[in-house]
């Protein structure tokens, strides 16, 4: 993590500012780039939000909210956006204007209100049943500079990872296959598993996949659509 050091004058000014207004933090302007580090996964529309420390977009080892489940199983972020709006978060939606393709980046700016001190992000990863890339409540630094955060892939714990073509609707089996992915995903998979024993949000164990595009257990291509963490990089410049 690279931090650009403040000049002594600026530090002195900050100390003065703190002395005069110790309880008020200024709104900040953030310039953010999200990079899909993988070569074989697409991200569905990304939602990024600055929110207060009391709110969470998701939390490991807890049950997913319906809104998170809807995003993780089908890529629909509208539920999460209304949840965040109700919590007075500062929100950026869908910076890539659709799917964020393998190895691609999307950039945007976000101005966060003084109470919104933490940053979170979520997007479904494709192909998967209920996998998502996420950032849970990263504390936004007050010091100006450029910060890098690497993101892992999570499993919402709401759907069995059968790895076969199916539905993106919450509660329905199978993986959604939007047109841009159609050619790269196999068919006629018999299903890797019908169990989801861990129904809480956890680090995704990765896809199994297979090397048969027209049969086998999985419709995922094992030499292209597996991954190792991290799967995304977030570059945040605090201006």
């Amino acid at each position, binding site marked *: 993590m690279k931090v650009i050091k403040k000049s002594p004058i600026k530090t002195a000014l900050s100390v003065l500012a703190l002395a005069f207004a110790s309880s008020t933090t200024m709104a900040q302007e953030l310039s953010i780039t999200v990079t899909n*580090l*993988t*070569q074989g996964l697409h991200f569905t529309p990304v939602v990024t939000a600055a929110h207060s420390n009391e709110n969470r977009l998701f939390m490991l080892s807890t049950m997913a909210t319906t809104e998170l489940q809807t995003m993780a199983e089908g890529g629909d972020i509208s539920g999460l956006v209304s949840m965040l709006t109700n919590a007075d978060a500062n929100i950026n939606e869908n910076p890539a204007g659709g799917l964020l393709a393998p190895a691609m*980046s999307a950039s945007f700016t976000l101005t966060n209100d003084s109470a919104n001190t933490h940053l979170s992000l979520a997007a479904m990863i494709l192909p998967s049943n209920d996998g998502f890339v996420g950032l849970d409540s990263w504390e936004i630094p007050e010091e100006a500079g450029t910060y890098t955060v690497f993101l892992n892939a999570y499993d919402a714990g709401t759907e069995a990872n059968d790895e076969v073509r199916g539905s993106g609707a919450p509660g329905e089996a199978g993986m959604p296959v939007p047109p841009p992915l159609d050619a790269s995903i196999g068919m006629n998979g018999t299903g890797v598993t019908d169990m989801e024993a861990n129904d809480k949000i956890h680090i995704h164990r990765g896809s199994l996949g297979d090397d048969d595009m027209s049969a086998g257990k999985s419709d995922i291509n*094992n030499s292209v659509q597996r991954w*190792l963490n991290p799967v995304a990089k977030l570059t945040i410049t605090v201006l």
Partner: protein
Amino acid sequence: MLTFNAQPKITKKLSSQLVIASLLSFGLAACGDSYNDSDNTYTPPVEPPMEYSYSLTLTNLTYGQPLSPIAVALHGDTKMWQVGQAASVALEKLAEGGDNTDFIALAENLATTSSDGPVPPGSSVTLAISTTEAMAKYLTVVTMLVNTNDAFSGLTGVDISTLTVNQEKSWRLNVYDSGTELNNEAVGTIPGPADGGVGFDAARNDIDLVGYHSGVVSKDDGLSSSVLTQAHRFDNPAVKLTITRTK
């Protein structure tokens, strides 16, 4: 520190002062012998260029992936690869075949070094690099995981100019895929000891964008065409790198 542009100016100033000084002493010497005219031979001190030296230690953290000879370069503010961009041919040669000759020869490099041979799993290598180039503030280190189609690890364009003497900095490095060769793990395509196959092939039959590697599958885990076994699987991080400024 003298910058490259400022130097000629200073020399010019010094030489005009010298002309005046020598004219004066010439006149004085003509007047009598009470002055030693050895001042005439005064030459401006040549500022020796500042030398920066570093020691780098790289450790192979994998179970069964020897690392190809480590390439180390110091250069200006540039990156030798980026996620989402096509690999250079020099990088492709390194990532597919472990041959760092072209990478070391890149025009951007101001100082380079390479380990003599590959670095086996569990082993470390320490390399020294020095430069007097004021612009050589950025570090690139790169090596291939040789039992793969085109996996490499390293870092590029990292600013090391803030390091003070004896200061040390470490990274745990992830594995990239050059995106230039399909990860079919097939017989004859992997240059490492697992196969002894062909390294560099100019044809680009993969995504042609650098990204993070998805790991090897191996024949033990469902890729029937693979020459690799469970023993060649790896995870991030694959390499530990420590740099210490020594001078």
